[in-house]
């Protein structure tokens, strides 16, 4: 076992322990806030796979979250499917959606892809509103509020542990994916399409796979969002446009192309979104949260392009001091991917 493997093992054990013990330190309501942190962890992990590792710009990740949320709400609310059984379906439906979103990526790259995916996020609420019979229209779609099995834990504790079980699993899956063959192929696509093609990697296949996997993660996140959001989904909750941008903020703050900082990105989204961060920093009430989201995004990407992951690994002595100096054999880990 190398030093970095030990460090990594320690980090994972610490995260698991923290997740298990945190409920002791917070009140009942705050458990739901941290349940949402788990939702964002899953969504950012997905976004990171397509954007950070495979280098495909997606400004439409919120749309996939929306699809997952609607899948759960419609199945549970209109067809009586138990909420936990809807989660794999949500992953599958969103994954298919991601596949469709990936199709333009076969012909378009960079900016054009950003444009199209942004358009998809902007159009999603309109589509959700339009097909009223299917989605509940602008009134939204609810289902029975989730109760814990037995009475060992409260409702909010159940939401917390349930969401975090998926979040930890998602992190594990993401880690296995990016360190294996698939992850290497993704990075090859990101770093040079020409080189990837000449070493026998089928670009179309890997791009589509990256979009599908990333959207499946978003689908699970959306499903949990619906469950944690008091079992209610509407065209603007989750708001695909806002969420696409917020998740991007989270992913950039976490550090694209690395899984280490994800929890920090997710914490930032939840506490900026609910306005708690403003309260803690004693900022004037009249300042909209959006202003901070935008400002954080710009400042982080300009000043700390590798995000929290970069800072963390520098602190832990894991990463290279100079991001662009690569170790032999491994592609450089960058703040952001290339075209």
């Amino acid at each position, binding site marked *: 076992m190398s030093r970095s493997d030990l460090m990594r093992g320690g980090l994972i054990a610490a995260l698991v322990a923290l997740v298990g013990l945190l409920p002791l330190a917070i009140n009942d309501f705050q458990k739901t806030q941290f349940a949402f942190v788990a939702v964002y962890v899953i969504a950012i992990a997905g976004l990171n796979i397509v*954007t950070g590792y495979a*280098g495909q*710009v997606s*400004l439409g990740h919120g749309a996939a979250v929306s699809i997952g949320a609607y899948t759960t709400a419609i199945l549970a609310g209109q067809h009586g499917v138990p909420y936990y059984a809807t989660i794999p379906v949500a992953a599958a439906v969103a994954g298919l959606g991601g596949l469709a979103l990936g199709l*333009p990526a076969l*012909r*378009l*790259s*960079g*900016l*054009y892809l*950003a*444009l*199209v995916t*942004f*358009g*998809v996020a*902007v*159009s999603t609420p*309109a*589509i959700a*509103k*339009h097909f009223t019979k299917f989605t509940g229209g602008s009134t939204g779609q609810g289902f029975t509020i989730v109760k814990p099995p037995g009475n060992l834990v409260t409702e909010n504790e159940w939401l917390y542990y349930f969401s975090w079980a998926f979040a930890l699993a998602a992190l594990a899956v993401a880690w296995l994916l990016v360190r294996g063959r698939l992850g290497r192929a993704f990075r090859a696509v990101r770093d040079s*399409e*020409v080189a990837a*093609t000449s070493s026998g990697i089928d*670009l179309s296949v890997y791009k589509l796979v990256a979009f599908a996997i990333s959207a499946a993660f978003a689908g699970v996140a959306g499903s949990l969002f619906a469950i944690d959001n008091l079992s209610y989904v509407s065209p603007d909750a989750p708001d695909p446009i806002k969420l696409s*941008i917020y998740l*991007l*903020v989270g992913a*950039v703050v976490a550090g694209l192309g690395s899984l280490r900082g994800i929890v920090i990105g997710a914490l930032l989204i939840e506490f900026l979104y609910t306005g708690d961060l403003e309260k803690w920093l004693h900022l004037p009430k*009249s*300042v*909209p*949260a*959006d*202003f*901070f*989201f*935008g*400002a*954080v*995004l*710009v400042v982080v*990407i*300009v*000043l700390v*392009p590798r995000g929290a992951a970069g800072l963390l690994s520098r602190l832990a002595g894991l990463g290279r001091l100079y991001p662009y100096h690569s170790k032999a054999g491994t592609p450089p880990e*960058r*703040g*952001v*991917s*290339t*075209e």
Partner: protein
Amino acid sequence: MVAFTWSELFQQIVSGLSTGGIYASLALAIVIIYRSTRVINFAQGEMATFSTYIAFWLIHDHGWPYWGAFFATLAMSFVGGVLLERTVLRPVEGAPVLTIAIVTLGLLVALNGLTRWLFGGETQVFPSAFSTRAIHVGGVSFSLQDAGFIGLAIVAVALLWVFFQFTKVGLAMRGTAINRDAARLLGVPVGRMLALGWGLAAALGALSGMLTAGSVATFDPNLMLGVLLYALAAAVLGGLESPIGAVVGGLLLGVVLNLLGTYTSFFSGDMRLVGGLAIILVVLLVRPAGIFGRVTARKV
């Protein structure tokens, strides 16, 4: 559905041109930045809204005459655009496309919040540069405002064309856009050209914001937020490189969406936005260079 009449068809075309003018003017600003710096500026609409509030503040709070405020706002927006480029975009110059897209998205969100914070969220009335009195020609009504809007957009395009074709600075800007390194070798101050591109686009955005607010009479901090997707669609439709394309694309989009909304039931109401997206997708997949763009060989 109402029975078809020719006068209604013409009325819908005229009103489509007027709405299309809004898309066109913002698309023009987007194209100018793209052309000179290869960036799609998602914050273009919010920059325009912010400029509109500055004009309103000069007119309403300081009693400036309309045209005085108009030109002062254009000048201030130009300076603001240059400053934005120098402070926010410069550090990420040469960074991957995604980085820059993220920065402009961040600007979009931050500027929208800033506008609300500084100026409040209420609906306000913006004075119009031209008379809004109706002129009736053969059953079709329009106002000087509509004609003036499209006229100003055309004047702006003509001036830009002259600038890019015949002035040294314009040529240098085009060179910078096509090949930064080559331009640098030829002694073009590349940094200054990029800043100039942002300044020009910010001023054009200000024009778009003021005309839009005047045309729809009212404005709030979300003035251009809804317009953005349509403007992007218009820019793509006309070809991201072409100022004339942006204007034609915007006008065409306005008319087509109006006719779809009037004569089909599917693309009316909330599905209008989806129509905008469909146009972006189809154009990008079928003819990525747009109507007026030159088709260049695609990388890989």
